[in-house]
């Protein structure tokens, strides 16, 4: 029963949240503030889904795929539990953060409702066992995120970013749809398991073309090389909570799509996996280089050094890392990638949320105006330092563990040894470059002297502080003892293949 609940609860919740918003005036008459109701309900809902996702695995009978009907459209296993838990946790943090962040903004109910449809769409993508379910979920979350990016609809930039995102993402979706159509037309099925066991795949000359179509389609959302033009605009103009969700969940869905296609649906033959994983690894490396160089370009800009834009480019770098791990083509590589998805969601999520706090305090996204804000508020300084160090892959933070796992995995990957060495060295060089960018941010926000006008201390709103503290604590716990979580992920990937 829980399986449909995970999809239905957010949708039903979204409906209720919209209803509250619609009935705002009537609720006001009977002395109920619909904003408070929305905040409360959204938080309970988010926490509920997170707990449900965690609990679902321990409930007997669900561990076994066979309990589902044979002509099912969904599957549910440890991997799905882990990914949905990560997404639900991030949504919960964003919603908790929104209590202060979205205070006194109009259309609160719609905002929360869209977040929950986003979550529902992502869960569908993760739980899909065939391309068509995946596509339905894909469109659901994509539509929600277009609207969320343009949530500050009075700002011209937000609408423009949303439109850009819409065009590029729709192009990607049409590629995916084309791929699905071709797959069905040629192989007669869109089911992952059927495709995996089909012998027609190895012999058909069009297989490479279909994989390429899927990689392009998913790659647009996964912010691969030059397909990511939408990403910096959308991230920097969306509300900060939405940037956190975009960076923490939405782009990861693209990586998941690539993995599902190349290594699962078309992964039946080792030849295909081996040759396409080489391509995917190099795609990841090139993406990392692109992201890193663009991060450095930001510091040279004369008009505005946009903090959120830098974080957005850094997301590109980490997506490169994740795709690189997937490209290793082994169980370990995929597990390491999923662990990196977790630590990157936490690290980048906390930084984007923190950017919301800072921007609300000083009213600008410009890094130059944020000079020394870490001194005015040590809380901001500490959260920022831990978040940046985690992204940079420094020990005692989760980012270090996941970086280590990805690198070990690439080395033990599918390719020839020279290629492995080259990939590892390029990956670590990129990690060091990225660290350079993070330290530059750290210099601006913590080390530089504040401008004379803002000497007084900053007050951090209480719910924003709680959300950030939880995330930072999780980052440190994962850094000190990653083993348990990582073993679960390994187990999850192992389950898939047995």
């Amino acid at each position: 029963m829980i399986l449909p609940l995970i999809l239905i609860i957010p949708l039903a919740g979204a409906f209720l949240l919209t209803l509250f918003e619609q009935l705002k005036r009537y609720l006001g008459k009977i002395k109920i503030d619909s904003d408070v109701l929305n905040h409360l309900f959204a938080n309970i809902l988010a926490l509920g889904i997170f707990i449900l996702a965690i609990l679902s695995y321990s409930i007997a009978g669900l561990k076994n795929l066979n309990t589902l009907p044979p002509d099912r459209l969904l599957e549910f296993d440890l991997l799905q539990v882990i990914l949905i838990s990560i997404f639900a946790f991030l949504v919960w943090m964003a919603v908790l953060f929104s209590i202060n962040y979205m205070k006194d903004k109009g259309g609160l109910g719609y905002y929360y409702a869209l977040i929950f449809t986003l979550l529902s769409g992502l869960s569908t993508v993760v739980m899909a066992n065939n391309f068509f379910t995946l596509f339905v979920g894909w469109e659901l979350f994509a539509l929600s995120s277009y609207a969320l990016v343009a949530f500050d609809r009075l700002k011209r930039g937000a609408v423009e970013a949303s439109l850009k995102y819409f065009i590029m993402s729709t192009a990607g979706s049409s590629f995916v749809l084309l791929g699905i159509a071709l797959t069905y037309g040629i192989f007669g099925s869109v089911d992952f398991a059927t495709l995996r066991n089909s012998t027609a795949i190895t012999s058909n000359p069009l297989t490479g073309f279909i994989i390429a179509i899927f990689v392009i389609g998913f790659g647009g959302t996964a912010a691969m090389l030059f397909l990511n033009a939408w990403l910096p605009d959308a991230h920097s103009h969306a509300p900060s909570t939405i940037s956190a969700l975009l960076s923490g969940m939405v782009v990861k869905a693209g990586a998941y799509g690539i993995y599902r296609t190349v290594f699962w649906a078309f992964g039946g033959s080792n030849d295909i996996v081996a040759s396409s994983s080489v391509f995917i690894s190099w795609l990841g490396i090139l993406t990392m280089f692109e992201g890193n160089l663009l991060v450095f370009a930001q510091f040279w800009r004369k008009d505005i050094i946009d903090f959120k834009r830098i974080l957005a480019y850094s997301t590109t770098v980490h997506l490169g890392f994740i795709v690189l791990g997937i490209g290793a083509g082994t169980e370990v590589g995929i597990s390491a990638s999923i662990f990196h998805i977790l630590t990157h969601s936490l690290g980048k999520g906390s930084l984007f949320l923190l950017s919301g706090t800072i921007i609300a305090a000083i009213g600008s996204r410009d890094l130059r105006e944020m000079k020394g804000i870490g001194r005015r508020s040590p809380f901001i300084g500490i959260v920022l330092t831990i978040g940046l160090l985690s992204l940079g892959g420094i020990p005692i933070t989760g980012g270090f563990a996941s970086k280590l796992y990805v690198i070990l995995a690439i080395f033990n990957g599918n390719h020839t040894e020279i290629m492995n060495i080259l990939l590892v060295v390029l990956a670590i060089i990129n990690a060091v470059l990225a660290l350079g960018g993070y330290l530059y941010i750290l210099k601006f926000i913590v080390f530089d002297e504040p401008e004379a006008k803002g000497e007084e201390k900053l007050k951090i709103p209480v719910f924003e502080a709680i959300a950030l503290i939880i995330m930072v604590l999780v980052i440190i716990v994962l850094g000190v003892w990653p083993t348990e979580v990582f073993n679960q992920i390994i187990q999850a990937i192992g389950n898939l293949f047995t």
Partner: protein
Amino acid sequence: MMIETLFLLSIITVLSPLVGAFISLLLKKWTAIRDIFSVLTIAVSAVTAVIIFILFDGAPKPYDFNWLSWSAGSDLASTTDQVIQSGFYLDTLSVLMTLIVTVLSMLIAFFSLEYMAEDKHRSRYWFFMQLFVGGMLLLVLAHDMIFLFLGWEIVGLCSFFLIAHHYMKKGEEGRKPALSGIKALIMTGIGDVGFLAFLAWAYLQTNSLLVTDLTSGSNAVFMSILLLLAPVTKSAQFPLQSWLSSGDTVNIDAMQGPTTVSALIHAATMVKAGVYLVARISPLWGEPVFYVILMILAGISTVGAAIAALVTTDLKRVLAYSTISQLSYMFLAFTIRDAGEHGLFAGQAHLLSHSIFKALLFLSAGAIIHSIAEERDMKKMGGMRKELPWIYGFMLVGVIGLMGIPIISNGGYSKEMIITTAFENGNWFVFVVGVLAAFLTALYAIRMFLMIFHGKNRGANVHKPKYIMRITLGILAVIVVASGFVLEGPLQNKLTGHNEAYTLLHFVPLPFFVSLGAIILGIGLSYLLYGKGQTEVSLIENNNVLRFLRDVVAHGFYMDHLYNAVFVKPVFWIGNQLSFLKTGKINWNMILGSFVAIATIVVLVVIV
């Protein structure tokens, strides 16, 4: 029973400062208690380290435990679980290093009680100090490369924060420490590239990450070069030395931290990590390429850094350059590679003695700088022997150790050992460079000493340091002299690890008198040039060519300028050019996107 005791003690040694660091954060309200508590956690480590040293009998002892399961193999369907082992490894090298690290760190922490008493941000200072020591101990005692790398990174991180400790100061005084910290973390980060890649490669070769399982394998030459990056960056060798000590005119380096931090970095932690790594893998890793390149780099560094130490007028920078030079000395010893591993022992002995006398020198420098209001320029000192007679005496002991005067200092024993071993094995490169470096060392050490203490006071106001500083310096001075004698006697069997009939210290006339001659020559020349309180040599000032060369050295050999021009600027420039493609002007986005899409299709159709 004995085994468990040692294991337990090593766990306590590592965990005491690591846990203490986090507890000390909680004691923010009671500053005095926090300061003393922080020293005590390191002292606990020191006590356990001494007990370990006494109990340890010389035979290597691993204590491993399973750390995480990890399914291996490149086959997608493989489900065989593999276990990565981690643990502590006690052998003579790690036991000795533990002893050095804990005891010296304890003394330095004790010293900082007085030195940092006026600082406003002591809770940050104490947190990172303890974490620093804990990270270094983890690195030293680790049996597998993951723990080693973990310690390695913690040490790097803490050095970043400690070097940047004064960032809160106003203006330039705050900007430089911040930049220095960033520079240190980024430049040592280059070494992490090599180490991490090597670690992953080693796992592929043997399916184990234990250091003792290290063997050669395919592509070993290439991996040797990658691994070399790690000690070269961490121990600040030739091409990548400028994070530790840059030119006088650049002035962005690790010397921007508090002097106690410099002492910790130079004496026991951080830069010793690179030397320790080479010493640790040296018996197991026999690739000639590794040692040949290391020898050349170390040879360049030891002479180059000694020359730079002759030119700079910043007291701390003289010591920093001297550290680079002495570290290269150890590397040179490791590259001798004789069958009995005598070079390895000589290098380890020099590691021990250098740690002690460099701690003494840095803390003396700290005491001097502290007593003349944070002035580091030697041109403004002079004539200090009247105001600071105690420190005069202690620093003299340190300088004797640095120069390596035989018999009366530990540095003398170990330096003699290196030169003798090089001579016996016919390694002429190491021998010649070693003697040359001994000469230059004597020259700059005496120059520094004379410029500080002799001649006339050139305008520094002195207020005398109190007891804590004097006590610490006194203890260190005694150890400098005493450890030389101990090296010869009871330590010998523990250090060599096996009871073969080789005496570490034996007298071979030719190398002994050659090096002694070089040292005496250096002292004499230095006294001639600087004995009357001169700060400049007229010969160099009046000659255009020499003055030009001096300026090159004073700019740190233009290394920082080179890196800026070759690496930093191009990265920004390419990024800037690339960002043009993202402005949407002719809608590059779509063109490039289509290009990538077509490329994807072509490549995948061809290769699948």
